[in-house]
């Protein structure tokens, strides 16, 4: 598959003395969305971290020809950082010329834009992390339980964003429990 935006072959991961999974192969092309399924502790987060290059696989190869966005439980917000500061920082670090104010407004964070993260509500923190997706156009989104803590509006908005991202040639790999809210192109069971 020459045009895969991300692919992996024969991955295996172990934690402690336990083998979490092995012989996992996957690939996503433009427009595809892969959902990772599995019980709590099955290794979805671990697999995503391997795909992102954060964790080493016990075996197997990952090819990552395109830049990726990474959204996880650990949102990356510092306790003292405000949503505005966070987005401005990463826009600058990535060399993205995004308009932070409109990103904040689009994420519904106009009101708490200057409240430090440790005082934000759980959903507001998650919205801030998700707003990073809009700072820069990156073909591959790796997202770990992206809907957690989101209210109904924010959830609908994220679903629409994912659909738009796919139709503009992007790909998504997501670990999700329950209904995804969009039509996945495939599923990986761990």
């Amino acid at each position: 598959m020459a045009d895969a935006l991300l692919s992996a072959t024969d991955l295996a991961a172990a934690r402690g003395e336990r083998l979490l999974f092995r012989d996992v192969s996957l690939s996503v092309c433009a427009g595809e969305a892969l959902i990772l399924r599995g019980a709590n502790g099955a290794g979805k987060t671990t697999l995503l971290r391997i795909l992102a290059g954060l964790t080493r696989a016990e075996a197997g190869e990952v090819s990552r020809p395109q830049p990726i966005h990474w959204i996880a439980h650990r949102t990356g917000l510092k306790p003292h950082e405000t949503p505005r500061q966070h987005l401005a920082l990463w826009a600058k670090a990535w060399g993205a010329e995004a308009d932070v104010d409109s990103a904040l407004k689009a994420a519904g964070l106009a009101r708490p834009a200057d409240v430090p993260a440790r005082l934000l509500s759980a959903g507001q923190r998650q919205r801030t992390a998700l707003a990073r997706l809009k700072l820069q156009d990156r073909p591959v989104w790796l997202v770990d339980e992206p809907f957690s803590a989101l209210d109904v509006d924010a959830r609908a908005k994220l679903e629409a964003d994912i659909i738009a991202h796919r139709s503009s040639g992007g790909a998504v790999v997501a670990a999700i429990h329950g209904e995804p809210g969009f039509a996945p192109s495939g599923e990986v069971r761990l």
Partner: protein
Amino acid sequence: MTNPAPLSSAFRQALTEAWAGGAGAFLPVGFFAGAAMLVPFGIGQGNEQLAAIGPGILWVALALSSLVTMERLFQADLEDGALDLWIQTDAPLSAVAAAKTLAHWIAAGLPLALITPLLGLMLQVPPADLLPASAAYGVGGLAFFLWGGVGAALTAQVRRGGLLIALIALPLYVPTAIFGAMTLQSDAAGMPPEALYLGASTLFALAVAPFAMAAALKLAAD
């Protein structure tokens, strides 16, 4: 050619963090001042004795407070997920780690060097010695922060991080502590040779520590 944008962002984030107290970077100044103040109580001796040991005490307080600052730096990055984001930037992780360490040195180490003259006066250090001492603390402090950063990165994901970081970093501090104390005690006029050794030990730390930090941080994220 590494892209400078992530580095300046890392630097600024660490600086804000240090001033906002995320990693308790202000502790060192209070700590340092407190240490210097408690010494006379603990020792309770006349001025001559204080004057003799004052500069040495300040070296030790500086070394310890750099340890305290650095301890939480990378651990916090690991816990809140910021480390994952930094690993994924274009810039080499060693440069990011160096930028963060420099920021913490500026936020916590330089103020220490700057309040040194005041504390020195209270500890009865002769005024003529104060400015050179201050400069020596600044330069030596950078080495302390860099080696402390290596210890902090190595222990970021580890239980018993506290003991480990001290065990790892303190031996690395010894050359700087020795050259530093010798610089202050030297009677040579102008720049004593020990000052050169001190500067060289800091340069060595600058050359080596960032790579050690980067390797340790990748391990911590794994």
